[in-house]
């Protein structure tokens, strides 16, 4: 095994100098000792790499369904960071009720993801709960970018320019999550399981315009 090779480690990829770890023949305790012993920086970097790897799937929306399957190693760090960032960005700009807005965006994001996932399951899709919440959380990233942009360039942007930026972010988000969600459902139920996602991102996007 050469160094600087991408090897699967845990649930993500780890680049850098890595010894090949053979999980098949190692028992659970040895694996845990390995990750406990490593320096904190390594753990953090590994998680950050995992998040960035998944974000790359959001940034370049892939319509081919096979590629969407790699998002199945779910984790909730990414959605948590993105939802905190979005809630803080939108809350800072509001003078009076910033705590209400912060709490509301947070609840809407997590509650909305849960509701959409339960809806997909009820319609008969074979989707695991946390995978779906993870994908929906990561796909909020473009809306985050739009919110941050609008916050920093507030005085230079008129209403219509904001509308264009937020509209582009919304379309980008929806396309990113489409490939994952539609691979789970039957042909005849695709539109009705994707419509709630559309509504969810539209709800979050409209907040960004009115900052």
């Amino acid at each position, binding site marked *: 095994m050469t160094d600087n090779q991408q090897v699967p480690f845990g649930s993500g990829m780890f680049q850098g100098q890595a010894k090949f770890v053979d999980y098949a023949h190692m028992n659970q305790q040895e694996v845990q000792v390995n990750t406990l012993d490593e320096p904190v920086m390594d753990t953090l970097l590994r998680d950050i790499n995992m998040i960035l790897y998944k974000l790359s799937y959001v940034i370049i929306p892939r319509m081919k369904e096979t590629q969407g399957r790699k998002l199945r190693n779910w984790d909730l760090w990414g959605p948590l960071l993105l939802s905190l960032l979005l809630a803080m960005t939108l809350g800072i700009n509001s003078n*009076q009720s910033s705590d*209400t807005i912060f709490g*509301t965006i947070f609840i809407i994001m997590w509650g909305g993801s849960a509701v959409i996932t*339960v809806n997909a*399951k009820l319609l008969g899709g074979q989707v695991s709960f946390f995978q779906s919440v993870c994908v929906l959380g990561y796909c909020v990233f473009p809306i985050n970018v739009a919110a941050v942009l609008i916050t920093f360039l507030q005085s230079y942007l008129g209403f219509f320019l904001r509308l264009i930026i937020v509209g582009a972010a919304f379309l980008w988000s929806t396309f990113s999550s489409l490939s994952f969600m539609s691979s789970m459902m039957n042909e005849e139920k*695709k539109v*009705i399981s994707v419509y*709630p996602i559309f509504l969810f991102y539209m709800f979050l996007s409209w907040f960004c315009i009115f900052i």
Partner: protein
Amino acid sequence: MLDNLNQDVSILQPSLQMTDSQIQNRIRQMKMEDPDDQTCYQKFCNLFTIEYYREYFDVTTELVIAKVVNAFNPFSGTFFDIGGGIPELYGPFWILNTLIFTTALSVNIIKYMQLQPGEHFEYQFQIVPILTIFMYLKTLIVPMIYRVALKCVSQDRLTLLHCLTIYGYSAVVMIPISLLNSIPNPAIQWMLLVYVLFAQTSFLTSNFNQELKYLPKEKKYMIVGLVAVVQITIMILYKFYFFSSINYEQLGLVKKRTTTHLLPHILGAN
């Protein structure tokens, strides 16, 4: 016993046209008749599994679109012929959520248009929880009223879930209206209100027609009147609570009344 059931169903399937989830629910019902076969979880916690509710979400895209298009037509009365008249919860639930979103949007657009030049726009978010409670309560209570009324005139074809389904789909008319309500012209707003009242009431009554056809006149008018009164109450509450913040003077639509402003005097303009 269960193996025989599967066999029989598969033979009968073309003519019986039972969907998969209905078959599973029937199997579960037959299991329930045999108490030894059930685990404790199945006996008491069936309500909390997803499979229990799957029966009510047994829809396809075509079916939902057909029902929505039918709901826009207030005179057809064929709502229960679509898809066999099976009650479902997908349509009402997501139509409600869409309605909440469009109303909140429209209220905020009105507020945005009334912005003074130097003012910073504050997104009025408090309206969303209130809207949610209003819409969900309305959708829970009104079908109960209809069901009780229909039971009083002694018919049993429509269960509570049927009433819920049809009431949920009738709210589709309100979605474009709530968006158009952001136009600050009072005449347009009243016209839209009247249109929604008329459309929803006639949609509901023409679909209850099969029950109403054979009734004596007084009872028929009573039911129609009940539907209309409930709709009027809800729409008036809706319009006056959520869309009351329109200041027509500020938008230049009504001539300004000359009022003396006290505050500058108090603050020392002398």
